[in-house]
C-alpha cells in the first residue's frame, strides 16, 4: 500500500516536511559534501546557539554547522555516506527547536547580496580617501604653499582619482541609465558635480592653482554612499525576512507510479495525467481532479471562501487548497502555464506595471532641482565672463556652484528617514520591502480589505466557551494530538490556552474522513464528525454561526456527545484598527471572494459601508482599477492567491505573514502579528516619515538659499564647501533620527 507523506505546512504554523521533500532543499557543497540551510525561529540567546550547533556537530559526518543569529538560520554541511538530511532536522527537533528547510537559491538570497557588499566596500574606500585627503587639505588650509601645496594636491589627486573611479560607479551607472531613457534623477547632478569637480581640481593641481576640491569630492561620495548602503541594507533585511516566510512549503508532490510505488517529485517534474497522493492536512500541489476518496477542501487561501467544500471523485481541485478530512488520490490536469496559479501570476504582472511608473520623491525633487542648479551655474559663468573675469575664473566659479549645490543632503534626506522608519516598524513586526513603499503608503486615501484571512484570522478557533470540562478537554486534546487536521490543531491550541495539557493516549486510530478513536480506561473515546460521534447534524444548527459551520463532536463512553463549534473569527482588534484608519481619513471597503452573507456579517460588525462579495481575482482587479480611475490612491490589504493581482495593483499593499506565497510576493509590507493594528501603525509611520522627508528637503533648500549666493559671488573655497556639506548632512540625519515608534 502506498504510504502518504506527512502533511505539508498549514498556512499558519508549518509542520516539518517529509523526508522526500527535504531532499529538494539539499545542495552540493565542496568535496562531495551536502549542504542544507534550516530556518530555526526558536533561537533567541547564546545558549540556543550553543545547543543547536552542539547537537548538530555531535552527529557523525558533520563537517560544518554554524548558526547565523541575525537571520535565525543554521547551515550544515556533511558527508553523504555517513548522514542524511532528515537526521539533521531530527537532531534539532529533539532538543526542542522547530526547523524548516530553505530552498538553496533563497538561502543565497538571504545572505547580504553582492549589491550591498559592493556598496559597503565603496563606502570604505570613499571613507579612507576622504579622511586621508582631508588630512592633507587641513595642512593646505592652514597655510602650506608653494611646492608643499602642489605636492599635497598631487598626492590628493593620486588618492582621489581611483576612488572616484571605483566608489562613484553606483552613481554614474544610475545616472547614465536615467539619461539613456531621456529621464533625470538625483544621480545626474551628483555625477556631473563629481566629474566636473575632479576635472577642475586636476587642472588646478597641474597648474599650481590654490584650490583643489579633492576632499569635497571624496567626502561627498562617502556621505552619499552611507545613504545608499543604509537603503540597500533595509531592502536586504526585509528580503531575508520575506524569504524566511516564503518557501516553507515544499515545492513537491507525492506521485504514484503505475506499478503502485510512490516517489516524491519537485513540482516542475509533475506532468498532466500523473496520479498524485494528497494526505489529510496537506495542500494540493497542482490543479487537477479527484480520482479516489472523498474529503473536504479548504479553499480560503486561494479563493477567499471560508466554508470548506466537500469533494468526491471527479471534483475539481485547485493548487494551494488544503485537504482537510481524508487522504485522496488526484489526477494532475493543468500544470505550469495553464494552471490557475500561472493565470494569477499573469494578472499580477499586468497589474504591477502601474506601480513601476511611480517616481520616488527624491527623483521628483531632482526633476526641478537639477535644471535649476545647472542653469544657476551657467548663469554664474556667463555673468562673471561678461563682468570681465576671464575664462578660468568664470569656470571655476561655475564649478564651485555645482559643488556647493551637489545634493549631498538631498541624497541622505530620503534614505535616512526611510531606514529609520523601516527599523522602527520592524521592531513592531512589520517588514517593509523598500523605501518607495512608505512613500506610496503615505499618499493613500482609500483602504480596500479582503475578508478571509485578512480581516479574519484565516484559521479556525473554537466559537465561544469550550463546552468541555478540564478532564474531557485533556482527553479530546490527547486524541487531537495525533491528527494534522486544522480543527484538531485548533482544539489543542485552545486546550493549551486554558492551561490544560493533552493526555498522552497510547493507541489512537485515525479513521479517514471520520475522526479519531481510542480506548482509554475502559471507555471508548471518539473525536470527529458529528454523525460518526453520535450527534445529530441537524439539531441547533441555527444557534451558532450557521454560516461558518465547522464542527467537531467529542464522545466519551456512553455519555452524550458534545459538539464543539469552530469559527474563523475576526482578528482581535479588527474594528479598532479600521476605526483608526477612518480617523486617519481613509475610506474603508471590503472586496471578498466569500459568500454574500459572510461578507455582509463581517462588514456590519466592522462598520464598513461599501463591500462586495463573490469576487474572482479578475473581478477584484477590475474593482481596484475602477477605484483608481476615480483618482483614489488605494491601500490594499489581502492575503490569498486571489488577492495577489489586487495587491500588485494597489498604490500600496500590506499582507499578513500567513498570506499565500503570491500574496507575500505582491505586497509591499508584511506584518507578523495577529493584530490588524499593524495596518494603521504602518500608515501612521509612513505619514510621519513623509512629513520628515519633506522637512529634510526643505532644510536642503534653505541651505542652498544661503550657499548659492556665496558660491555665485565667488567666495567658496574648498574649506567652506567641506564645512557646508558636512553641516547640512548632519542636520538631515539628526532630523531622521527623531522618528518615533508607532503606538
Amino acid at each position: 500500500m502506498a504510504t502518504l507523506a506527512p502533511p505539508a505546512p498549514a498556512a499558519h504554523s508549518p509542520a516539518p516536511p517529509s523526508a522526500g521533500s527535504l531532499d529538494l532543499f539539499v545542495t552540493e557543497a565542496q568535496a562531495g559534501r551536502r549542504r542544507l540551510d534550516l530556518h530555526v525561529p526558536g533561537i533567541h540567546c547564546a545558549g540556543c546557539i550553543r545547543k543547536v550547533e552542539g547537537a548538530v556537530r555531535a552527529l557523525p559526518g558533520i563537517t560544518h554547522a554554524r548558526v547565523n543569529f541575525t537571520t535565525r538560520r543554521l547551515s550544515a554541511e556533511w558527508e553523504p555516506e555517513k548522514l542524511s538530511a532528515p537526521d539533521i532536522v531530527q537532531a534539532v527537533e529533539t532538543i526542542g527547536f522547530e526547523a524548516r528547510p530553505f530552498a538553496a537559491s533563497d538561502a543565497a538570497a538571504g545572505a547580504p547580496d553582492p549589491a550591498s557588499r559592493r556598496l559597503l566596500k565603496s563606502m570604505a574606500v570613499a571613507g579612507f580617501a576622504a579622511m586621508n585627503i582631508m588630512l592633507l587639505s587641513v595642512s593646505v588650509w592652514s597655510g602650506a604653499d608653494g611646492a608643499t601645496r602642489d605636492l599635497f594636491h598631487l598626492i590628493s589627486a593620486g588618492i582621489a582619482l581611483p576612488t572616484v573611479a571605483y566608489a562613484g560607479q553606483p552613481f554614474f551607472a544610475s545616472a547614465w541609465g536615467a539619461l539613456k531613457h531621456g529621464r533625470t534623477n538625483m544621480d545626474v547632478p551628483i555625477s556631473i558635480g563629481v566629474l566636473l569637480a575632479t576635472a577642475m581640481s586636476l587642472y588646478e593641481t597641474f597648474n599650481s592653482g590654490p584650490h583643489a576640491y579633492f576632499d569635497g569630492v571624496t567626502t561627498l561620495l562617502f556621505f552619499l554612499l552611507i545613504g545608499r548602503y543604509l537603503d540597500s541594507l533595509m531592502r536586504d533585511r526585509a528580503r531575508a525576512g520575506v524569504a524566511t516566510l516564503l518557501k516553507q512549503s515544499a515545492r513537491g508532490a507525492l506521485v504514484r507510479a503505475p506499478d503502485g510505488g510512490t516517489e516524491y517529485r519537485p513540482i516542475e517534474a509533475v506532468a498532466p495525467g500523473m496520479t498524485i497522493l494528497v494526505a489529510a492536512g496537506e495542500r494540493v500541489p497542482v490543479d487537477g481532479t479527484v480520482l479516489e476518496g472523498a474529503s473536504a477542501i479548504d479553499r480560503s487561501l486561494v479563493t477567499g471562501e471560508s466554508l470548506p467544500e466537500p469533494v468526491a471523485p471527479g471534483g475539481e481541485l485547485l493548487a494551494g487548497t488544503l485537504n482537510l478530512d481524508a487522504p485522496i488520490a488526484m489526477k494532475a490536469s493543468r500544470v505550469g502555464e495553464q494552471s490557475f496559479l500561472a493565470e494569477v501570476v499573469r494578472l499580477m504582472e499586468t497589474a504591477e506595471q502601474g506601480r513601476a511608473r511611480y517616481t520616488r520623491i527624491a527623483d521628483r525633487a531632482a526633476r526641478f532641482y537639477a535644471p535649476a542648479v545647472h542653469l544657476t551655474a551657467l548663469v554664474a559663468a556667463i555673468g562673471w565672463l561678461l563682468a570681465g573675469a576671464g575664462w578660468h575664473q568664470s569656470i571655476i566659479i561655475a564649478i564651485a556652484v555645482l559643488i556647493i549645490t551637489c545634493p549631498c543632503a538631498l541624497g541622505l534626506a530620503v534614505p535616512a528617514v526611510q531606514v529609520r522608519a523601516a527599523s522602527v516598524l520592524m521592531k513592531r513586526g512589520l517588514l517593509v520591502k523598500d523605501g518607495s513603499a512608505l512613500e506610496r503608503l503615505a499618499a493613500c486615501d482609500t483602504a480596500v480589505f479582503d475578508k478571509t484571512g485578512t480581516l479574519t484570522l484565516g484559521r479556525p478557533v473554537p466559537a465561544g466557551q469550550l463546552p468541555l470540562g478540564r478532564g474531557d478537554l485533556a482527553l479530546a486534546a490527547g486524541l487531537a494530538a495525533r491528527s494534522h487536521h486544522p480543527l484538531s490543531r485548533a482544539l489543542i491550541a485552545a486546550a493549551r490556552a486554558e492551561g490544560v495539557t493533552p493526555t498522552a493516549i497510547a493507541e489512537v486510530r485515525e479513521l479517514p474522513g471520520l475522526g479519531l478513536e481510542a480506548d482509554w480506561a475502559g471507555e471508548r473515546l471518539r473525536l470527529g464528525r458529528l454523525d460518526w460521534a453520535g450527534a445529530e447534524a441537524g439539531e441547533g444548527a441555527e444557534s451558532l454561526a450557521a454560516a461558518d459551520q465547522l464542527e467537531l463532536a467529542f464522545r466519551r463512553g456512553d455519555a452524550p456527545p458534545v459538539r464543539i463549534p469552530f469559527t474563523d473569527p475576526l482578528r482581535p482588534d479588527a474594528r479598532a484598527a479600521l476605526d483608526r484608519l477612518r480617523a486617519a481619513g481613509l475610506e474603508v471597503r471590503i472586496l471578498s471572494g466569500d459568500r454574500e452573507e459572510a461578507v455582509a456579517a463581517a462588514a456590519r460588525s466592522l462598520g464598513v459601508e461599501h463591500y462586495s462579495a463573490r469576487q474572482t481575482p479578475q473581478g477584484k482587479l477590475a474593482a481596484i482599477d475602477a477605484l483608481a480611475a476615480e483618482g483614489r490612491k488605494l491601500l490594499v490589504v489581502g492575503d490569498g492567491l486571489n488577492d495577489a493581482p489586487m495587491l500588485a495593483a494597489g498604490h500600496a499593499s500590506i499582507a499578513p505573514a500567513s498570506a499565500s506565497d503570491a500574496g507575500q510576493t505582491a505586497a509591499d509590507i508584511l506584518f507578523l502579528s495577529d493584530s490588524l493594528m499593524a495596518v494603521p501603525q504602518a500608515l501612521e509611520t509612513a505619514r510621519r516619515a513623509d512629513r520628515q522627508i519633506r522637512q529634510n528637503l526643505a532644510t536642503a533648500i534653505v541651505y542652498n538659499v544661503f550657499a548659492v549666493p556665496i558660491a555665485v559671488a565667488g567666495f567658496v573655497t574648498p574649506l567652506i564647501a567641506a564645512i557646508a556639506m558636512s553641516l547640512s548632512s548632519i542636520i538631515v540625519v539628526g532630523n531622521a533620527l527623531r522618528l518615533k515608534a508607532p503606538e
Partner: protein
Amino acid sequence: MNNLFILLPVALMLGLGGLAAFLWSVRSGQYDDLDGAAHRILTDEEDGPE
C-alpha cells in the same frame, strides 16, 4: 620638508592597512551576523570562525 617624505608614506600606508583590513573582514563574512557575534562571546567553548 624632508621629514614629510617619511611621514606621508607612513601615514598613507597605515590608512591603506586599515582599509585592507576592513575589506578583508567584509569579504570573510564578519559583517554577516552581527547579532550572533554579540551573543557568542558569552559562551565558553572554543569557537573560531570556520
